[in-house]
């Protein structure tokens, strides 16, 4: 898994590529949380999943953890470009009911 993090104003955009599972979830969590800790003004987190082709419950847990973190600091989190191959685990988990997938592309989410 690779992460590309970009700060746009008060928004943190994270582009993820590869698999989000038990092995990669800790790095995903730590890299995002480090930036959130460093920049307290960030109030929006956008996760671009266009290049993610595998997510399991460990990956979902890490995503949900970032959502809870953003909510606890009064911010929001959005998911964009969820591929069909991974959307089924999101649907089955009920995560789409919690985390908005209002935007299909990253630019409109920022």
């Amino acid at each position, binding site marked *: 898994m690779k992460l590309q993090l970009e700060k746009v104003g008060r928004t943190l955009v994270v582009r993820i590529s590869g*698999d989000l*599972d*038990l*092995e990669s*979830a800790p790095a995903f*969590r730590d890299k995002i949380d480090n930036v959130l800790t460093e920049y307290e003004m960030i109030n929006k987190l956008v996760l671009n999943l266009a290049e993610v082709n*595998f997510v*399991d*419950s*460990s990956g*979902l*847990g*890490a995503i*949900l*953890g970032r959502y*809870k973190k953003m909510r606890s600091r009064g911010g929001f989190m959005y998911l964009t470009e969820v591929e069909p*191959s991974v959307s*089924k*685990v999101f649907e*089955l*988990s009920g995560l789409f009911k919690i985390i908005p997938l209002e935007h299909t592309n990253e630019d409109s989410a920022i």
Partner: protein
Amino acid sequence: MSNNNGGYSSNNYMRLIFPSRPANVAFARVAIAAFATQLPFTLEEIDEIKVATSEAVSNCVIHAYPDSVGLVEINAEIDSGLFRLSIKDTGVGIADLDAAKLPSYSTNPERMGLGLVFMDSFMDSLSIETAVGRGTTAIMEKKPSNPAPDDQDQAQDVYEP
């Protein structure tokens, strides 16, 4: 790809044994998915097998051997068009299996407790044998939804590695 005897009717099996390290979760699901493609599963079904395998092996890493590294043994079998998967550890076992099957049964806020739910939902059947102190074996089965691999229209959906 031509195949004189139809190929899909052949029975086959494999066994993988590896230490319960996080890096082996991806290895296991990719290996099992590649083996499963000997049956005419669709891309979506192969993705489901990957998730189920990933969950079962992750459970071995996290729960079966919480403070150590132990062995995970996977047996996969193709038997008369049916894919059967057994994922076994000799770890701590599950004290309360009914509770463990409940969604959101998790002791860690970063985890969703959906592992067994995904295994159950994405495979046709799931059974778990467990004994405290002896280990756990998860047995799952799945049949391709499209059993006619020579149907040209639907064959396009079949995963080719």
